[in-house]
């Protein structure tokens, strides 16, 4: 039993009751003699002063932050993927900074070693010819990319950002379970875990002397900016797209560091450079921090089936057109079998032993090693030699402790003898445990920590912190980690108080205002359509509300006006279903557009949109037609107004915002013309004019302006021609005209662009015409002209 005497002032004496590390397992919190490690004392004291209810409230606060920030976890199942709540374990892992420093030395040595191995595998190949690595392992590794052989990176280095999955042995020393060299994720999640954990412990965190993470990111940001050729061009983060499980992190890091988030389709490989397609034409990109696996980067020279790549990328890199972080092909360093050879390679290339060893690994292509694995099968994990998964991320055919999982192979011996060259044995390691709050008290759970290293002009720097994974049960074998569990912040605690730097004061170099014209065409397109979809949803909701209100009043859908409305609505949705699927589709499309430009979008705006889509989904199938549905629509409208307010009040008047506004105005003009086409028609039943005015949210204005009953002229005047009515068609066209005037190339050689002249023409006509000239036929033509405006806008800026 640990010496868990209640702390002074403790209101939760049970917090540590029963906490004890397993025999033969290192524990982060307890020393082998059962006393608390001193570095944990302040945190445990603080936690002990909280009642269980206090703690629960605090944890909710952290979870709320993560939810609001949009941090989720994508879980893949047989039926697709679902978004799950981020599984934060609210108790951080605490490590003393002197211990961390020693560990960091080992990390830096390993990073330098990996750089040399990479330079050899894509250069002279000496490690193979000198017998330090078997040729077949490299030649058969799908991550060793032959087209990259012989290409020296422009920056002079292959590797710039690495991660290492580490664990602690029973003897207290650290070891590496796997090197993450391809496109390591987790650094952004580590930041989010930090923010959430500091929300859980807002009084304790600031004075707990925890090393801050921001300087690490600031240094790496400066390093990436420094890799630009001649300081020209941009740094971009290349993501496979929003379908990737770590897309949130890509967008988050891009926003945090101020880099442009790109997908390959944004990239254009030009003669000797890389460019991003923007609304003002191609702009050079000089450095790419890729979050895309190498082999998908170029369908021309790498995986020809890849739809995620930019054709010609390899040729561009060969010509020194850009710096790729990390170099394409770096995934070869993740092959499990490499771990069997790194200790000797370190001696050979560095002239020193590995300071930070890796998990003991035996490649079964060698008779001696194979026999060893066979004889010690009981404490081995046996799996594919070239897998890049971590040891605890088990592949389908893997042996644990001598028994197969998920395979019909007859015997492990036969398997090893037949397929030895494709297999490795790895020691079934025991991890250390760290406290997690389970069932009202702290309980030991196994953990691994992902550590990050970044190359700067001053050498490798290690993030003081990391991304901890916590096992679900108390089983301390690495295998337990595969069952999933939670994640936690990692605190490196110093003896001296920490300053509180933020990213802002780390900026090197002179102040620079960012060029506002820089907007990738794809981002512009998504913002434009976001504007359109949100407005389309609003129009549909208003139409549905007008219908259900009248249905509630009359009680019969057979009434002529209701029948007329049904007929009009039929083109969009079936009003018998209060939340018709097309409405959900439009909201889902809006959400999809926002997701793709999440790096340029305020978190509040995103939350409002997400909330709107969720509310609509939640209402589906629960509302009855009539009054209930009308009230439901009212609620959705208020949420929509919340979103629009957040976006239009708070979003900086960047080019991106202009596309959003143009999209909204264009859709509103189109909806308005459509509405008048149907409801200002002479043959429409009585009450139709009122619907037009109501759906266009202009009831009050109409009453004040005309002080008469609605008639065709008043309706057309107010909803099409009144320049002061923010709902009128002319108002939208004027707004679009002014926004387009602010876009690049609105004029060329003193002449208006096609788009600008079409806008001017329509605007002028609407200003000078009279209501009776705006016939139903003319309304149809106006609608077609609005459609052509959209086509012209896309052709000029968004394709």
């Amino acid at each position, binding site marked *: 039993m640990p010496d868990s005497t209640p702390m002074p002032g403790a209101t939760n004496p049970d917090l540590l009751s029963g906490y004890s590390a397993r025999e033969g397992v290192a524990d982060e919190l307890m020393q082998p003699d059962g006393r608390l490690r001193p570095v944990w004392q302040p945190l445990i004291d603080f936690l002990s002063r909280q009642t269980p209810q206090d703690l629960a409230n605090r944890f909710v606060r952290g979870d709320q932050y993560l939810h609001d920030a949009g941090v989720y976890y994508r879980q893949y199942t047989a039926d697709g993927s679902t978004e799950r709540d981020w599984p934060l374990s609210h108790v951080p892992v605490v490590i003393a900074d002197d211990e961390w420093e020693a560990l960091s030395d080992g990390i830096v040595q390993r990073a330098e070693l990996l750089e040399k191995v990479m330079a050899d*595998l894509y250069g002279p*190949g000496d490690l*193979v*010819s000198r*017998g330090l690595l*078997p*040729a*077949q392992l*490299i*030649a*058969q590794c799908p991550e060793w990319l*032959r*087209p990259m*052989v*012989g290409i020296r990176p422009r920056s002079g280095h292959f590797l710039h950002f690495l991660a290492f999955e580490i664990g602690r042995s029973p003897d207290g020393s650290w070891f590496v379970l796997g090197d993450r060299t391809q496109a390591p994720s987790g650094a952004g999640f580590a930041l989010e875990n930090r923010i959430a954990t500091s929300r859980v412990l807002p009084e304790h965190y600031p004075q707990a002397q925890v090393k801050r993470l921001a300087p690490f990111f600031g240094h790496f940001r400066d390093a990436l900016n420094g890799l630009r050729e001649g300081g020209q061009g941009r740094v971009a983060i290349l993501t496979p797209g929003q379908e990737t499980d770590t897309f949130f992190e890509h967008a988050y890091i891009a926003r945090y560091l101020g880099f442009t988030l790109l997908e390959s389709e944004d990239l254009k*490989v030009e*003669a000797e450079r890389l460019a991003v397609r923007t609304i003002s034409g191609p702009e050079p990109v000089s450095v790419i921090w890729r979050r895309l696996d190498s082999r998908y980067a170029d*369908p*021309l*020279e790498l995986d*020809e089936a890849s739809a995620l790549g930019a*054709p*010609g990328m390899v*040729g561009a890199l*060969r*010509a020194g057109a850009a710096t790729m972080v990390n170099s394409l092909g770096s995934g070869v360093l993740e092959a499990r079998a490499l771990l069997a050879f790194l200790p000797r390679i370190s001696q050979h290339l560095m002239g020193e032993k590995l300071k930070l060893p890796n998990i003991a690994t035996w490649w079964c292509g060698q008779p001696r090693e194979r026999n060893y694995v066979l004889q010690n099968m009981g404490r081995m994990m046996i799996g594919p030699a070239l897998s890049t998964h971590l040891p605890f991320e088990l592949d389908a055919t893997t042996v644990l402790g001598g028994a197969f999982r998920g395979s019909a192979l007859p015997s492990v011996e036969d398997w090893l003898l037949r397929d030895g060259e494709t297999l490795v044995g790895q020691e079934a390691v025991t991890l250390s445990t760290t406290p997690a709050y389970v069932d009202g008290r702290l309980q030991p759970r196994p953990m691994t920590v992902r550590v990050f290293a970044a190359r700067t002009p001053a050498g490798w720097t290690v993030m003081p912190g990391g991304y901890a994974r916590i096992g679900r049960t108390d089983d301390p074998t690495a295998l337990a980690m595969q069952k999933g569990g939670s994640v936690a912040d990692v605190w490196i605690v110093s003896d001296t108080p920490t300053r509180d730097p933020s990213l802002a004061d780390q900026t090197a170099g002179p102040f620079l205002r960012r060029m506002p014209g820089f907007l990738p065409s794809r981002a512009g397109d998504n913002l434009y359509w976001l504007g359109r979809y949100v407005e389309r949803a609003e129009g549909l909701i208003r139409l549905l509300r007008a219908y259900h209100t009248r249905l509630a009043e009359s009680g019969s859908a057979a009434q002529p006006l209701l029948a007329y409305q049904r007929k009009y609505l039929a083109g969009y949705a079936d009003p018998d279903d209060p939340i018709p699927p097309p409405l959900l589709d439009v909201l889902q499309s809006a959400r999809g557009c926002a997701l793709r430009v999440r790096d340029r979008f305020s978190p509040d705006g995103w939350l409002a949109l997400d909330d709107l889509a969720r509310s609509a989904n939640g209402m589906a199938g629960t509302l009855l037609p009539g009054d209930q549905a009308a009230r439901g629509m009212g609620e959705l409208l208020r949420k929509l107004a919340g979103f629009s307010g957040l976006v239009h009040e708070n979003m900086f008047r960047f080019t991106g915002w202009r596309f959003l506004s143009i999209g909204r105005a264009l859709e509103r003009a189109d909806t308005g013309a459509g509405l008048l086409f149907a409801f200002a028609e002479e043959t429409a039943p009585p009450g139709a004019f009122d619907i037009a005015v109501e759906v266009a949210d202009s009831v009050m204005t109409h009453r004040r302006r005309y002080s008469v009953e609605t008639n065709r002229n008043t309706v057309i005047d107010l909803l099409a021609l009144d320049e002061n009515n923010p709902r009128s068609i002319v108002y939208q066209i004027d707004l679009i005209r002014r926004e387009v005037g602010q876009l690049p190339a609105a004029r060329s050689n003193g002449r208006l662009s096609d788009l600008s002249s079409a806008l001017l023409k329509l605007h002028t006509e609407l200003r000078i015409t009279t209501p009776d000239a705006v016939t139903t036929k003319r309304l149809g033509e106006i609608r077609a002209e609005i459609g052509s405006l959209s086509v012209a806008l896309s052709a000029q800026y968004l394709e």
Partner: protein
Amino acid sequence: MSVLYDISLAIIYNYDQPAAASREMLRILPRTLPEQQLVSGLVTTEPAPDFRRDTVDFFGNPATEVVFDRPLDAVTFRFSGRVRRRAESTSLDLSPGLTGLAQDIAEAQSLGNVSPHHFLGPSERVRPLAEITDFARANVDTGTSTLSMVLALSAALHREMTFDPTATEVATPPLEAFRNRRGVCQDFSHMMIAALRGLGIPAGYVSGFLRTLPPEGQERLEGADAMHAWVQAWCGAEMGWVQFDPTNDIIASTDHVVVALGRDYSDVAPIKGSLRSAGSHTSRHEVDVKPVGGN
């Protein structure tokens, strides 16, 4: 003995809905090898590309990257030139048996582009297939030399398979062609490679040209109407690589002009491209390989 050839190749594509831009990698320039010299020759396109870069790929094949920054209804990729091909000295069978071969492979510790290690494992188009390995075992005597196994396998494939240009397409998987027992030179070659690798013999893919009209009194070979494909097998440290043509069941010799070497078709495809065209396209090959001053 050597033969001097004048070679011309045109690959013509027509597109229904041209893509706004396109980028292609061409591997149509014959290689210079100990038994073959490119005397003169040029790769061109019609129309001329907006950007062009000539490189050499990992396996030593000349490759040309071309970019068209405008929509094209039609494009022609062309090679024309002169190549000297010498007969390989048909030497004694110095190849070891499978055990000796495995030993030779293990000792060849190199990542250089002729290392047998590149040609033993799965590659893009050729994965190990138990069915084809079984076929190989049933048709060769695994106790003999590597070279005799290669010859036996070539004969077996030639016997069992029917040359049929209508049976397969460029993307047909080897197993499908194998089960149907029909295909063209690409299918014969992929099956042969799968079979050889299944036995533990390193094997690669050769693309090239075949003399169009046979020397007098000889039969015309299959595959002379378009670019041809055959196989190379590594027969141990002493013999090294030996090329064979399973479609015609002969050792590749002065009738064969090598354009590119690789693990399978995807390493050596004459035209590889990023045609983001929505519509369909048609392509046509025109090949002429004739001895200078001969028939």
